[in-house]
């Protein structure tokens, strides 16, 4: 867990969630939920839909204010300005080129755009030669890669991903997982996914979020470093166990 990130802070940080209380439509979603997400590692959050995975991610991102409780870095300081967020839809602005979309953060903050860094990132996600194209000229997989480049361009120690690869076909998803794993190395990544296979391929740590109010239960990650091959080592066995854990929890849900 002592991997250092290539970002400007030079240090990867834990993400700490402390006694989070949050209600959704009057029903308690979290009641004193606490968790610690390890620095420099990918943590995958699994669980039934509607179970609060995305809400937890939004609370960490500062997009949803909890009734009580705090979210902060392992150093005790707030996470403001230290997170990058990636959604399941690419959220590219259709009137901007791939290059300008990647530079969106800097453009919004009024900072000078490091065009060399932008083009280098687009090159690393395999989009060299497509920099000037607008999103409508790109395939779904390519757009999601632009979104990945935009997330990396923010160069933040914490990266929050909400089902980042769920909207693309299986082969594209597989390649994007490899790419994300390589490019996100050293950052604290919290990834929400509904796909146990994806969690088992990418996660250093796994959590299942379920129940009302929701509880986080750790699940055993397979051996070896991500990205893991789908049939390597104990992954198939872990897959089986994870599916059982998920279906056991699904039975206790209201829907």
């Amino acid at each position: 867990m002592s991997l250092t990130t290539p970002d400007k802070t030079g240090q990867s940080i834990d993400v700490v969630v402390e006694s989070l209380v949050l209600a959704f439509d009057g029903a308690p979603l979290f009641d004193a939920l606490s968790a610690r997400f390890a620095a420099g590692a990918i943590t995958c959050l699994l669980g039934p839909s509607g179970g609060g995975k995305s809400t937890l991610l939004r609370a960490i991102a500062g997009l949803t204010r909890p009734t009580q409780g705090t979210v902060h870095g392992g150093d005790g300081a707030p996470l403001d300005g230290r997170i990058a967020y990636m959604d399941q839809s690419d959220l590219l602005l259709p009137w901007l080129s791939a290059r300008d979309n990647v530079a969106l953060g800097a453009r919004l903050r009024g900072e000078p755009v490091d065009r060399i860094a932008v083009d280098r990132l687009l090159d690393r996600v395999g989009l060299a030669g497509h920099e000037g194209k607008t999103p409508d000229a790109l395939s779904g997989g390519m757009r999601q890669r632009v979104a990945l480049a935009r997330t990396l361009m923010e160069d933040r120690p914490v990266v929050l991903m909400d089902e980042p690869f769920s909207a693309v076909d299986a082969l594209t998803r597989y390649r994007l997982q490899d790419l994300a794993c390589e490019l996100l190395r050293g950052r604290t990544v919290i990834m929400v996914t509904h796909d146990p296979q994806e969690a088992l391929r990418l996660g250093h740590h796994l959590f299942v979020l379920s129940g009302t109010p929701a509880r986080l239960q750790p699940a055993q990650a397979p051996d070896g470093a991500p990205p893991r091959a789908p049939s390597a080592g104990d992954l198939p066995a872990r897959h089986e166990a994870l599916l059982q854990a998920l279906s056991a929890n699904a039975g206790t849900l209201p829907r």
Partner: protein
Amino acid sequence: MTAAGRIIATVIGLLVLWQLVVWATGAPPYLLPSPLDTVSTLIERAGFIAGHAAVTLAEILAGLVIGATIGVASAILIALFRPARRWLLPVLVTSQVIPVFAIAPLLVLWLGYGMASKVGMATLIIYFPVASSFLDGLRRTDPRWLDLARTMTGGTRPLAVLWQIRIPAALPALGSGLRVAAAVAPIGAVVGEWVGSGAGLGYLMLQANARVQIDLMFAALLTLAAMAVALYFLIDFAVRRAVPWQRETTTALPS
């Protein structure tokens, strides 16, 4: 069939229908001149009609520029500032519920018989569709884009978000407002000319009608219709060029 082909076919179809009505009813030329009579009058008195058309066109264009500018400005103000919403929204609605016909005499009284009162009328009629549709667009920014911007800026740069995300995202809505404005703008100018003026197509139609020069009246009407249609398509074309990412607008004329 291309768009141009369809337009030409429609115009020819309408002219044939017009001629058929003239033949079938046997209406005398002083009640319903044939298309041929109208066109020959149009050609004979082209310079005379063009002079009046130029006045009306100038009124429409000035009204369009002023009305659209005020409309865009108030939509932005209302979208940005809560107090502005409380004060300006009633003004916006009032501007629409008062019929232009009812205040036309007032405007002529205040602004005189010249172009100013007609420009004022056109401005009034254009303001509402532009302001309301643009405001609608500004309020309907995809909340996920705004969330993304918030993780990038911490919510500290509302003006940059407005300028770089909300306004571009609302341009298609502004485009539909401008299309409606282009279609109704001639009404404002012509009503103004009817109430009191010394030039313009509305004035010409009123005078020709009073002197039972129905062919001249029809020639003026035809010119006004041609101008209005040309204006609509010009704006439609400009909007599509300005908002190329908006696929829906390109299906305004399904092929």
